[in-house]
């Protein structure tokens, strides 16, 4: 066992990402806690043919779809909330480069739960009776489809209900607010489905806004909803969810949300976006410089900042994190 699990972003993608893998992320609603920087790095490294699971679409999936890295997706919601339709996803779906299988915002976490518990199926009292059940983008000939959401008979009453297929993604990149170097993690704001996903996925990589001293973890064990036991690696990456928000740490970057979504609407715009915001940095410092320090300061001035206050004294500096990362670690 390593004495820490800190790893660079590029190493994390090199180590865990494979062409064709089932990749889960965006483990938050469209606007928050998007582990998108892992997706940016997958674009940089040219990971292909991803079968993605996004509880909700985020800018990460929007980018992976727009750039052609994802050929399949399963989602509960595929917009960008008040930022409108996700243009990259939309273009990929409408042109047929990505098949999108539709679920709902409850069925995806239930399927993660079923994967976490290793059940063969999960009872479904929602999604049945609608085209979420009857139509399948992955099995388009089935009409009505029953391989996507089957029916099962309640043995106690004889009543018919639905049955979901559990999810056990190959890799999940999960954004968290704080992690210690071993991978014990604290999330601020709704968990959305990050708890269930952290148990369902075969391998979990954390993308942490800040690394904290283990003393923080031992002071707040009830906040540690993801223990190191289920974590393979920890990537320290400040503003890793940008342009999404991270409650307690930074607000959503409204301007970039819109500009990015506009860019992803076309192949040319996507190429420009990749050039300017995916390929243009090589480490944390150049990443932060790309966003711009004035903008970072503005985004950090969040009304939610007080939520992070109890933990700030344990946050390690970038230099301290780098020093730990340089020694030992994953073999």
């Amino acid at each position, binding site marked *: 066992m390593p004495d820490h699990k800190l790893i660079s972003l590029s190493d994390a993608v090199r180590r865990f990402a494979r062409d064709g893998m089932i990749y889960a992320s965006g483990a938050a609603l469209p606007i928050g806690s998007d582990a998108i920087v892992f997706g940016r790095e997958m674009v940089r490294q040219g990971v292909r043919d991803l079968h993605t699971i996004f509880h909700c679409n985020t800018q990460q999936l929007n980018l992976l779809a727009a750039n052609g890295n994802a050929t399949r997706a399963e989602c509960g919601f595929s917009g960008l*909330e*008040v930022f409108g339709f996700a243009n990259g996803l939309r273009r990929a779906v409408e042109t047929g480069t990505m098949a999108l299988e539709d679920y709902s*915002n409850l069925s995806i976490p239930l399927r993660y739960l079923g994967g976490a518990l290793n059940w063969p199926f999960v009872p479904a*009292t929602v999604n049945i009776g609608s085209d979420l059940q009857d139509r399948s983008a992955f099995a388009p000939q089935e009409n009505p489809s029953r391989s996507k959401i089957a029916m099962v008979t309640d043995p106690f009453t004889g009543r018919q209900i639905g049955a979901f297929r559990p999810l056990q993604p190959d890799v999940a990149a999960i954004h968290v607010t704080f992690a210690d170097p071993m991978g014990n993690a604290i999330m601020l704001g709704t968990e959305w*489905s990050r708890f269930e996903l952290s148990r369902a996925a075969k391998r979990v990589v954390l993308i942490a806004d800040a690394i904290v001293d283990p003393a923080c973890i031992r002071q707040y064990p009830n906040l540690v909803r993801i223990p190191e036991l289920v974590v393979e690696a920890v990537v320290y990456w400040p503003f890793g969810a940008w342009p999404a928000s991270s409650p307690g740490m930074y607000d959503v970057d409204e301007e970039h949300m819109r500009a990015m979504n506009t860019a992803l609407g076309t192949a040319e715009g996507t190429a420009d976006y990749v050039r300017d915001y995916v390929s243009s940095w090589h480490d944390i410092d150049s990443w932060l410089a790309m966003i711009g320090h004035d903008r970072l300061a503005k985004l950090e001035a969040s009304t939610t900042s007080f939520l992070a206050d109890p933990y700030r004294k344990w946050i390690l500096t970038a230099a301290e994190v780098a020093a730990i990362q340089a020694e030992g670690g994953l073999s």
Partner: protein
Amino acid sequence: MSAAATHGAREPEGYTRQEMMAIATGREIKDREIAIFGVGLSMLAGFFAQAHHAPNVRAMTEGGVFGSSPVGGLPWGIECNRISTNATSFTSALDALGCLVGSGRCDVGIIGAAQVDKFGNVNTTGIWDGEIGPTYRAPKTRLTGAGGANDIACGAKRYLIMVAHEPKRFTEKVTYISSPGYLEGGNARARFGFVGGGPSAIVTTLGILRPDPVSKEFALDGWYEFSSADEVVAATGWPLKVRPGAGIVPPPTAGELVSLRRVDETGALRKR
């Protein structure tokens, strides 16, 4: 959603059609109810109700944000910092949509629609050229998918549909059912054992539609002071019946507008 103007309707004075729709929706929510709001318009309608006549409504979001009201304007999203600033509890989607909505515990939800049909079935998934056909194919225009609306439609005791009133949105039969209303009408929901009761109203930019108690077909129950029964019928893609007793929905009171605009800090509903 300003397309209603194309039907030649008058614009109201002193408030917008969108504000009327939000207020009419909010009036459907009673004090002390357990309620779930989506992002955008439906959240404004819900928090308007809380600010105006339902101070003890117990609201949550799909992500399990409890006890919160938006700070600094309309949230950008359900998990948005504007709604995370003054929450009393953060849990999860499984908790909010599963334990509290899918379970049948939630009294009322509010959802939106790209298309809605005469039995209150909602399509938010895509627009196809014609029928999908026996083999599924991608839509010509991909929309947002179901989100939590399907779960609300299956589980909430009742729910409200908010939608801009345009003929293309009000169709005899939606191409794709993202969230079930009364399906083919009558008792059709019973086939699936849904614990939720189905849509209790469709509140639009022109009026309010409610389901027939038996057939479950939606009919016109009220129009606004700036619209009319004829206008609503003309803007509806199926032969819309008018319920006995249908009439004008009271316009916003001064108090309602004050409450709504306090919630709609950034004026999202005032844009015409």
